[in-house]
């Protein structure tokens, strides 16, 4: 067991895999000598050299496109974009090439690649560097979407992402990079499609991802004082999605609140809500509620940005309307 920050956990996992497998390599803007925009790859350049920790031009299309080619020809690339917002620039490579290629050649190639996408608001980075675009990516057949909320999950899921023979989108919330936690570096990789109940409770299920898991856990402590025990469900992977665990939780609590940092309109929160309404309707005792960011670009003003992102206080308010 090691006490690691989430950033360190991701680095440890990548390092472990690179030591084990010479075909694993990293590429991205400033991932080399500089150690990455947020410092995730710090020190890896020294250990693995410029061949395996490669700096790229400032072109997301090139980064993802090269990863597709490298993966198709037998290596296991890990591509890092500075911000998920820039995935729009590399979207053709990711959506039309990476996601489709294995399918279109009838499975004759493998496409083992990881695209690491830092996301989320709260860093005063304004509208073009703060979005949560997971719904776009989860919408595309052919992409697996991983979204850890704590160091241990990040470690186990990164191991699995590198081992997977398909394109995996790995979402890293910037605010969570510094969050520390116990990591079992000898643990097995975490299977995709296995959710984690971060807290057990009997009165209401909160489904949350990324940073919102932490806000939900804060809320849980708060509400517990009032005698309301909420269960915090963290899917960990958006696709594949662990419906079974979510439905089991709702069978127990009969209430579902989905908390997400996305803009509410067209969000993955809506997808979760639809799944439950379609397949778990009979177990609901209250309308499903979604608590998301407001439908606006992420504001630059710190006051407005704090207002924009749901927090523990907002969750308490939302929960109390459901009883």
């Amino acid at each position, binding site marked *: 067991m090691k006490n690691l920050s989430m950033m360190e956990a991701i680095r440890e996992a990548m390092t472990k895999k690179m030591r084990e497998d010479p075909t694993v390599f990293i590429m991205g803007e400033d991932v080399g000598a500089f150690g990455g925009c947020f410092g995730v790859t710090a020190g890896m350049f020294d250990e693995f050299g410029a061949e395996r920790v490669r700096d790229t031009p400032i072109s997301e299309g090139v980064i993802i496109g090269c990863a597709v080619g490298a993966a198709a020809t037998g290596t296991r690339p890990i591509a890092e974009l500075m911000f998920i917002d820039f995935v729009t620039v590399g979207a053709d490579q990711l959506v039309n090439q990476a996601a489709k290629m294995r399918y279109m050649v009838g499975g004759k190639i493998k496409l083992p690649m990881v695209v690491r996408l830092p996301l989320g608001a709260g860093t005063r980075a304004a509208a073009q560097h703060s979005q949560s675009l997971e719904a776009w990516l989860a919408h595309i057949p052919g992409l697996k979407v991983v979204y850890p909320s704590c160091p241990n999950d990040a470690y186990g899921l990164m191991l699995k992402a590198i081992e997977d023979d398909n394109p995996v989108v790995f979402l890293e919330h910037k605010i969570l990079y510094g969050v520390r936690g116990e990591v079992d570096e000898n643990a097995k990789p975490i299977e995709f499609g296995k959710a984690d109940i971060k807290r057990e409770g009997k009165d209401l299920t909160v489904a949350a991802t990324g940073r919102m898991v932490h806000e939900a856990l804060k809320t849980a402590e708060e509400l517990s004082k009032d005698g309301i025990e909420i269960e915090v469900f963290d899917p960990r992977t958006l696709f594949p999605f662990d419906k079974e665990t979510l439905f089991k939780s709702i069978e127990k609590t*009969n209430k579902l609140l989905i908390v997400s940092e996305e803009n509410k309109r067209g969000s993955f929160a809506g997808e979760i809500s639809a799944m439950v309404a379609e397949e778990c309707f*009979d177990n*609901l*005792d209250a309308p499903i509620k979604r608590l998301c960011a407001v439908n606006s670009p992420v504001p630059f003003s710190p006051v407005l940005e704090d207002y924009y992102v749901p927090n523990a206080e907002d969750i308490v308010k939302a929960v109390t309307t459901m009883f």
Partner: protein
Amino acid sequence: MARIIVMPKLGLTMKNGKIIKWHKKENEEVKNGDKLFSIETDKLTNDVIADEDGVLLKIIEDEGKTVDCLKPVAIIGKAGEDISNLLGNAKTESPQEEKSNEKIEKPVEATAKTDEKIKISPVAKKMALENKIDYTKIKGTGPNGRIVLEDIERELENRKKIRMTPTAKVVAEELGLDAGSIDKKERIDKEDVLRLSANKAYDNLVHPVEKRIPMSTMRKVISERMTQSAFTAPTVNYTISVDMTKLNDIKEEISNDYKITYTDLIVKITSVLLLDFPLLNSTLIEDEIITRNYVNMGVAVALEEGLLVPVVKNSHIKSLKQISLEIKDLTYRAKTNQLTTDELENGTFTITNIGKFGIESFTPIINQPQSAILGINAIIDKPIVKNGQIIVLPIMNLSLTADHRTVDGAVAAMFLQELKKALENPFAKLVR
């Protein structure tokens, strides 16, 4: 040239028919001789057969509709033919259709009124239904007055609160019984629990199951007509025993030539005799008694799902062989659902034979609007005292039910006496 197909009139008294099945779809080709549709009347079911080639252009009356005789039910013509003209006619000719539309609309309105929206969560609703709780009477405590799980659980909890004696409680627990299922206002005691236990054990043993079977049209008709008869006619039942020795011999003898039954023989003899007893062959309508100089003999035929009474018309003048062949034919066609309504109508008297089941006497119900019905029983060898000697003879009882409004006791008795004589010495009547 397209033409309208109408609901046929299959008998003089047929007023309407229910379409129970269309054998052809709209725009399907129809050949002369194909089954078009099946209809059900108050007497029987029948198939309507196409009498020319063409295409079924339009079905005007759907399955399940009851249509007056000679009203349009469909249009047959050449493919693609313009039938708007005919359709217009069909509409104006068929006020029935509009009426039935009204009928359909009404219940919809009624349900819309009673179906007030009740706010209830899905899980609460499910639980309420599972536990047979009428949630419309529960006040919701959730947001916006919605009935939530807690409300249903509270209701269930209330149900469970039952008053019982300590001994009863112990006994119920020991037996693993839910005393909540005991319906009692006073305090439940040990006896109640033991009774519940005994009943449960008994239920487990017998698995009682009840089924509800909708009545067929035939059953409904039988039910209506028997009830009507029983409540209309003040009846008297008469029984007489007949020595069947000679009739038996005749039957044996004729059977060497062609197969004949006791029913055939009795129909023949009774038909002839009825001319001498016009009241037994009569019909009472309001304050008039209609008598006849002919006999139409109804012969009851048991079917799997009911019974039919086809009629041998003018049986008083038909030869024994004619009667025998006709009864055989009618029976066969009754059992295969091929009778026409005319063959079921205008009977003036009925004979029903249940002798083959060993019955010795019964009281048949008159087939209205007739005045009497003759039941035939089993022929059984019995010891009879004759001239001071006990001898064994084949004896058959006749069971006559007569309507006292038209047939007095003496008349019925005389008829039976004469019938007994005629059956015991049958030649005179048989050769008529």
